[in-house]
Each structure stands twice: as structure tokens, then as C-alpha cells.
């Protein structure tokens, strides 16, 4: 494999003096083993590679990408970008290139995960299937190892690498599904048998569910549900582009959340995965967004920072110029209660395993509709009474975490991958919330 930084330097050498340019090269292996109805049916590996170039000629901006790294291909890449820039109008919002700055000292990397073969993934899948003890199963086990290099004509040079492994599966009875999942920098941390047992237990305990009248209920949300809530807050609220356009709920300095909520973006967290700089070459630092319920900051890329008179916080995303900035490594502080203790504290409410197909209805208040999935149970006086059929909810995610709305925070901080519609991985605990608005049964 050609070293990514070598490709960056070769591209920059092809760009004329006086042209602002930045190059980002991603290379590595992405592999995923998928199973359904109890057997491996899809199994893939890609030698991933992408070269991304952004040039700015007298304030005129253009971007180009290629998967090819021959001299001819890189020459075409540069010419294509320069030719396109020459035809563009001046971009008044162009913030300039990232200055030279060093990244945090992190290395979320594991050699064994980067080089994992299909047999290693199949072993975990096999263990999951076996542990489900006769129930039908489906899911995936993935591994990836990516090297990223960044260079710009302002002198910034950065390299990073990250591995990640995920195991995510369901077990199915005739009337119910149960799920379990795990994400880590190390494939060795993923226990297929344990995940299969847990998914199987949930599926069996969710079997023969009966309907529940829609309404407002207390809920205990699993980490996967909590990640979903935070992803919407990130996209529609903490994204400085939403602030700039007047679409964000955030008001810096105000107590918009319960006092038990403290939220930061922190790629250096021990459980996190990822690299220490963003798509524009800005290093990432721990960035506090909510401190004991008070909104303290939003996340910026260089464009929103210029527009709002701030500094980039290192949250530019590839191809995200028009979208804005996103946190890829949110960390929600843990509480002291074990998940079971959160359930014990429910008066009358629901224990929810997963959310499904959540979509925003009102981006300002982040009213979202979606459904429950993979196991919901009615809890009365701290005891699980019975499984209930899936429910549709329509709920403001801001209000759900508002002052006085959080009754408990779990101690079970967990890394959950694919946080923001496939981008990033968040570290979160379970939450006990005072109210969640269920607006219908899944049957109508």
C-alpha cells in the first residue's frame, strides 16, 4: 500500500505556488461478515482508498476526489480541481486553510483488528448463532483499519489511524426479536457467545407481547436509544450551521437540560475510536457541550467559525461543507445506577431496547417520530410486568432531557458505533426519563 502521506505530498507538488490546497487520503481495509436465518450469507472486504483534494484559487473553491493514485490519475485530479475552481465565483465564506497545529496524542489502533481475516469474524458469528440456542439469528461482525493523512499548503501535516470492530445481532422467536451489540477498537473485545445469549434472553422475554394503550410513560432507554437521541441533538442543535441559520434550539449559558446531563465530544476518551483531527486538518480537543445541564458550546468547522466569529472546534466532516459540523465522539457522563436499578425506580413505564426509523418532524424543537424495536417491557412499581408490542412515539428530544426530566443516569457507559447515521461512535449510558410520548401502537 502506498503511504497516504506520500500521496498527499505528490498531490501538493502538482499544485501551483499561490494556490491554497489541502489533501486528505484515507486508505485501509473495511470488512464485514453478515449473517441471517442462522448462516453467513454476505461476506465482504474492500481495500478502501480515497484521495480528496480541495483547491482555492483567488477565493474560488473546488473539490475533487479519486480512488486512483497513479501519476496520471493524480495529475487529472489536480487539473480537474483547478479547472473547476477557475470557473467558480469567489466564495465570500471561504475561511482559509487550517493553520499548523499538533493533534492530540491518541492512537486507537489494534494490529490484530486491522489484519483480521474472515475466519476471525466468522468465529464470533458462529458463537453468536450457537449461543442463541435454537432461535433464528441475524446480524453482522465487522472490522476496519484505516490510515488517514492530511496535508495542506499552509504547512499542516497530520497522520492518524484507527481500528474498530462491531458485532451486532438479533435473535428471533416467532413473535419477538431481541438484540445485543458491542463496539470496540479491538476485535478481541467482542464476545460472540455473550452477545448471542443476551439477544436470545431478550427475545424470549419479549415473546408473546400484548398491546399497551399509547400515552406518556416513564422510560428507561438503553445506550443504543440514547445514542439516537444525541445524534439528533448533534445534527439539528449543536451543529453551528443550524445556529447560523436560526434553526438550532441551543442557547449558550442557559440550563436547557437536566442537571444530570453533562455532554462532551472527546476522541481521547479511553472507550472512543477515531482519529485526532477533522476533515479540514483541525486537531480535536475535548469540547464540552453541556455542563450539568447548561448548554456551553456548539461544534464548528472553519466555515461556521468564520461566519459566527468563533474558532473551529475540529468538527468538519468529509463532504459536509453545506451540512455543517458534527461531533463524532460524543461522551455522555455516566451516573451511579446499574441499568437494573434504573428499572427498579420506575413507577409505571417502559424499558426500551432499541429505536427504529427515527425522523425529525420539527427541527427547532427536535420533535422526532419513530418506533421501538427488539424488546419493550411494561414496568410497574419497579418490576417488569410483561412485554408489550412495539409502539410509535412522537417526542421532542430536547424536552425529554430538559430540566427535571431525567430521573436517573446509568453507570453502564458503552461505546456504540454508527452513531450519526453511520458516522462516529458515541460513549453513553442508559437513561431513566420522566416522560416519553407514545402516540400509537405499531399495529395502528
Amino acid at each position: 500500500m502506498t503511504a497516504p502521506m506520500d500521496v498527499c505530498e505528490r498531490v501538493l507538488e502538482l499544485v501551483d505556488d499561490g494556490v491554497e490546497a489541502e489533501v486528505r487520503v484515507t486508505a485501509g481495509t473495511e470488512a464485514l461478515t453478515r449473517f441471517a436465518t442462522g448462516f453467513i450469507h454476505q461476506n465482504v472486504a474492500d481495500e478502501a482508498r480515497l484521495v480528496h483534494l480541495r483547491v482555492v484559487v483567488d477565493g474560488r473553491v473546488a473539490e475533487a476526489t479519486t480512488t486512483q493514485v497513479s501519476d496520471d490519475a493524480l495529475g487529472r485530479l489536480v487539473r480537474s480541481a483547478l479547472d473547476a475552481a477557475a470557473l467558480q465565483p469567489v466564495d465570500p465564506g471561504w475561511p482559509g486553510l487550517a493553520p499548523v497545529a499538533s493533534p492530540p496524542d491518541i492512537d486507537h489502533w489494534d494490529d490484530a483488528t486491522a489484519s483480521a481475516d474472515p475466519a476471525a469474524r466468522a468465529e464470533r458469528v458462529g458463537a453468536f448463532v450457537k449461543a442463541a440456542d435454537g432461535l433464528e439469528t441475524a446480524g453482522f461482525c465487522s472490522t476496519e483499519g484505516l490510515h488517514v493523512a492530511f496535508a495542506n499548503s499552509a504547512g499542516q501535516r497530520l497522520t492518524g489511524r484507527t481500528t474498530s470492530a462491531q458485532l451486532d445481532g438479533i435473535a428471533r422467536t416467532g413473535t419477538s426479536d431481541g438484540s445485543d451489540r458491542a463496539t470496540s477498537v479491538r476485535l478481541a473485545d467482542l464476545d460472540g457467545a455473550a452477545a448471542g445469549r443476551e439477544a436470545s434472553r431478550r427475545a424470549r422475554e419479549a415473546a408473546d407481547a400484548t398491546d399497551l394503550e399509547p400515552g406518556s410513560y416513564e422510560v428507561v432507554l438503553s445506550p443504543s436509544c440514547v445514542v439516537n437521541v444525541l445524534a439528533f441533538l448533534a445534527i439539528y442543535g449543536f451543529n453551528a450551521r443550524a445556529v447560523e441559520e436560526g434553526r438550532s434550539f441551543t442557547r449558550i449559558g442557559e440550563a436547557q437540560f437536566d442537571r444530570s446531563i453533562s455532554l462532551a465530544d472527546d476522541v481521547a476518551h479511553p472507550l472512543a475510536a477515531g482519529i485526532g483531527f477533522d476533515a479540514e486538518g483541525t486537531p480535536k480537543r475535548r469540547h464540552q457541550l453541556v455542563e450539568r445541564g447548561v448548554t456551553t458550546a456548539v461544534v464548528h468547522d472553519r466555515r461556521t467559525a468564520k461566519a459566527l466569529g468563533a474558532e473551529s472546534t475540529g468538527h468538519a466532516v468529509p463532504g459536509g461543507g453545506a451540512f455543517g459540523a458534527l461531533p463524532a465522539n460524543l461522551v455522555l457522563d455516566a451516573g451511579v445506577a446499574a441499568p437494573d436499578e434504573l428499572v427498579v425506580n420506575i413507577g409505571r413505564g417502559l424499558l426500551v431496547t432499541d429505536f427504529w426509523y427515527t425522523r425529525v418532524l420539527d427541527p427547532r424543537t427536535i420533535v422526532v417520530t419513530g418506533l421501538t424495536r427488539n424488546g419493550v417491557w411494561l414496568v410497574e412499581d419497579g418490576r417488569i410486568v410483561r412485554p408489550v408490542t412495539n409502539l410509535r412515539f412522537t417526542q421532542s428530544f430536547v424536552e425529554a432531557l430538559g430540566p427535571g426530566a431525567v430521573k436517573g443516569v446509568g453507570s453502564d457507559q458503552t461505546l456504540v458505533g454508527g452513531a450519526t447515521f453511520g458516522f462516529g461512535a458515541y460513549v453513553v449510558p442508559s437513561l431513566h426519563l420522566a416522560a416519553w410520548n407514545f402516540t400509537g401502537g405499531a399495529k395502528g
Partner: protein
Amino acid sequence: MFEYAEAAVEAAIAAGARYADARVMDRRHESMAARNGEIEGLTQEQSVGIGVRALIGSGWGFASTADLDTDAARRVGAEAAAIARASASVPGADLELTPVEVRQDSWANEVREDPLAVPLAEKGDMLATVTRTMKDHGADTANAGYDIWDTTKWLVSSEGHRIDQHIVECGARMDATANGETETQRRSYPGIRGQYGTRGWELVRELDLPGNSARIAEEARALLTAPECPSHDAIDLIIGSEQMALQIHESVGHAVELDRILGWEAAFAGTSWLDLAQLGSLRFGSDLMNVTADATLPGALGSFGYDDEGTPAHPVDIVKDGIWVGTLSGRDSAALAGINESGGAVRGDGYNRLPMVRMTNVGLLPGDSSLEEMIAATEDGILVDTNRSWSIDDKRLNFQFGCEIGWEIKNGKRGRMIKNPTYTGIGPNFWQSLDMLGNESEWTFWGTPNCGKGQPGQIGHTGHPSVPCRFRSVRVGVRG
């Protein structure tokens, strides 16, 4: 490029695969975006590489690389077979493939005006102008953009397929957002995702973004002071064709994907409420409901000459006179389900993604009513259009959709504009309440350029011919 695909297939077969195919793909994508009168981004992407699929026993192995030479092709061919062999440690019954005629052919869609040849300055001027116009007419934020994809692919299979295709797709979109004290309202044109097709730049010219920019900005502003959509447990609902495209996509298209019905997507995208034992007898909708999956429709976004298994494009009946009669399938899923031939619906998103069942052009055949006739025939109802939000359960039964705009219908006349309209229902109940169907003059081939499916994730381009429709006794105005 055929030589690389042939080398890959030979290597996979030599490594023990009983079937293999390989696709070399060269895809160029150009996109430009403007905001508030300024161009904000121009991106030109080129993705070139080879992906190889090998079948051993019950499992596919797939490997891909951006390295395009004979050695690399042989390497990933052998790797695909090795991956398929590893799958055998968690085996199922052997997968069979339905037979398909082996062809050597070339295919390209009709393009009157090459979109990549239209000067960037002209395309940029259009986007900047329409966003400026929207700002001038009340938008706080105005966005516009276009996308062009120019894809050439070369398919070789161990059965002898040798097919190259050149597919050009393009389209455009714009939206205006108005901010109120505590809310934002948005209007999009021509739809939330724009409009896309397998056509040249003539499609974008026909959309006439400049001629609609002032109107949608004014509508976004007007929505801020419009009354909220009233809540009704049961009311007549007329749905415009853009929202109907989404309705078809989510509650019919995904539900009839055979891989979902077989459980292959159970953990992620979900399954389907449909049971193969009822294929040919289940009542899906009213007698007016006729749905086809037809990849031969000229200009529609889900059109092609051959799918990525080499199956020729052909129309497939999905729902006929309200009865469920067909699925979206590929060679493996059709064989497993006991269906005689592949539906020709297998495609991969780029060289580095495993081809899988995707929608082609799944759409409603037109009826004999016009939108105005539907309004005139409605005593008390709601008219909605332009998708704003979409959510549906993992069996594709329970849906709740939101639209950007609505109007009350009173005594056969369009009344007040209303905001935040939503409606909810259960697929077959909803479709069985269909009682008026738009006519051929209103038949629009909507294109969806962002259908997500699969792991690793794939983005599919799908088409949805649709017309305005009226449904009876629908729950609308669901509140949070």
C-alpha cells in the same frame, strides 16, 4: 476493462468458486451547491475499481480494490473465493441461481444534452440566481444544488456474460427555509429530494427552477402564520404525486423486496409483513391499485439495460387490481423462494459494494381522475404534498409521514393552507382505502437518489412513477 473482470472471475473459479462475476466500474459524480446567492461547493468525484463476487455453498464472498491491473484483479478474485469459503463455517443450505440467458451486449440510456458538458459557470449561475430569488422573496435560508452521475460498468460472469453499460443520471433541487419565533418552515422544489432521472441536462431545464423559486419562498414564509393541521381520527386525504412517490417507496417498494421477505435483512433494514404463501392471493390494496417494477421506463431514475447480475431489464407486476402478485428479486433470492426467474433487481452502489436487491422503478399505474376532480369530489378532507418526514416500522406496516404543506378541502373546494400536516396508517388498510387515482397526464416518474440499504451501507437510485391519489378515513394531524 473487460480483461480485468475476466481475470478476476478466472481467479475466483480457480480458487474453488462454483460461480463468480466481476464488475469494473468507473463512476464520475459532479455536484454543486449554492446558499443564499453564493456558490458554496463544487465537487467532482471519480471512483474507479473492481468488485468480485464468488459463490461457494451457501454464502457469497465479495472483494474489491481500486487497483486496476491484472494482478490486482486476480488477487481480489481469489480473495472473494477465500471469503466465501470462510462463510462455510456458519453454513446454510446451498444457494442456487435461477437461470438467465447469457448475453454479450452494450447498453446506454438516451441523453440529449450531456450534463457534464454544460459549462460550470452556467450551472452555477442558475443555482446562485434561484437562491438569491428565494432570499428576496422571504427565505431566511435558500439552498439549491444539482448532481450528475456518469457511470460506465463492465460485467463478466463465469457463465459467459460480457455486458457494458453507460448510464447518465442527473437532477436538481432547491429549498427555502423561513424562521419564526419558535419554529422553522421549509418548502422544497420540485420535491424534498429534488428530481432526478436517467436523462441529460434537459431534465434540469424542464424543471424550471427559476420559475418556481419565488413561489416556494413565499409559501415557506406563509406557512409560519398558517394554522396547524387539525387532528382527525378519520378524514379523506388527498396526496400529491411527490408524497405518493415516498408512500410507494416506503410502504410498497421495500415491503416487496424478496431479500427482506426471506429474512436476509432482518437485523438491519427489517423484514416484511408479506408472507410468500400469500403471493398471488393477498389483497394489498383496492381494485384501483396496480403497481409495477419496471426498469425499462425511459428516463426514470431506476432504469438500466441489465442489472448487476446480467438479467435484462423487464417489467414485473407487483400488485395487480389490488392483489399482491410479485416481488423485487435477484437470481439467488428468486431460486430460494421458488420463483422461476429473477426480477432483475440486483444492483451495487459502486465497484466496492456487493450487489443486492434494490428497487428499480416501482410505481403506480395511472387511473382516470384528475387532482381537481378529487378535490371537487371531497366534502371534508385534507390535501397534502411534498415529503418532510418519513418513518415506518421494520415490517413496513405502520407508517407516519409528514408533509411540508397542506390545504383544507371543504365542500369540494381547496381552502386554507395548513402547516405541519402528518398522517399515519397501516399499509394494507391504507391502500385498501384508495378510491381515486390520478390520470396519465399527471403521471410523474419521481426519482429518489438516496435510498439506503445494506451493510456496509449502500445508496441506491430508484424511480417511482406516481399520481395524486385520494384515500378515505385516514388519521391525520398526529401531535408530539
